[in-house]
């Protein structure tokens, strides 16, 4: 069962008070004040700032994934070389072993292409 005070609060909330007592008047003022919003607003570029933080975080995460991928690839390569002790005498390897600089350039060029794709091309597509 509701107490008299609870009942009064309910009546004020529903706008059912006909003869305002001192308590009812005080409650009315409280209810009116409670409807007021707190005096705080976020700044205008708030959403822009959050999106910038998200973009930065995602870029950092991509770098970590790329670094982890390169690291694991190198480890896998070393392990497979150690385990298989290959002799570079078959087919294309005979050719490549004569041009180690070309191999290094090829790998560096592919990495560069990926970097340009990520940093320049994708960014331009996103901003369209």
């Amino acid at each position, binding site marked *: 069962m509701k107490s008299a005070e609870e009942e009064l609060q309910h009546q004020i909330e529903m706008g059912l008070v006909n003869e305002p007592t001192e308590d009812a*008047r005080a*409650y009315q003022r*409280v*209810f*009116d004040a*409670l409807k007021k*919003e707190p005096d705080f607003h*976020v700044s205008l570029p708030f959403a822009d700032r959050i999106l910038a933080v998200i973009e930065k975080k995602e870029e950092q995460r991509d770098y970590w994934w790329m670094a982890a991928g390169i690291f694991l690839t190198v480890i896998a390569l070393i392990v497979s070389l150690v385990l298989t002790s290959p002799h570079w005498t078959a087919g294309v390897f005979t050719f490549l072993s004569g041009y180690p600089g070309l191999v290094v350039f090829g790998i560096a060029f592919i990495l560069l292409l990926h970097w340009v794709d990520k940093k320049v091309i994708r960014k331009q597509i996103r901003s369209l």
Partner: protein
Amino acid sequence: MIDDKALVSQVLSGDRQAFRVLIKQNERLVGHMIARLIDRHEDREELCQDVFLKVYEKLGEFTFQSKLSTWIATIAYRHGINHLRKKKIEIRELPQEDEREQFVSAENVEENFSDQQLNDMVMSLIDQLPPHYKAILTLYHVQEMSYPEIVEITGLPEGTVKNYLFRARQLLKEKVKLYLGKEEVL
């Protein structure tokens, strides 16, 4: 206004502009919640930012069991309370009956005051309430949320939510009565 499901799926598919819309739709809700819980003005905007970053991070886990705004308010409420705990700011309870006199004391009651001053006084009294009470009052009266929504946001039982609302209003009323009493004398 875009519906919750469409908006969430757009954000999850990587649409940044959709997340901008989500922020715009909920920044007042988050701002009000944080402003009520956190007194230090300088911390508020940063905490609001943290709330939206968490929303972005966890949006994939949102299961549409509630409204998106309720879920975001839950994150804001917990973030605010965790901040108070981290900063070792005491999360007080309402004064007990024997301590109430201090809260509703007539000491500082001015003899001449306008309606606006009275409203400001009530607002400053609300600021003095314990954080859980302030949050519940804001959710109920400013955001016009239902009891089940407030229960979901605060994690408190419905009876406790109703009790907090009742006690907080009663305490505020006692203080306002002192002012109105002065007004009548004049």
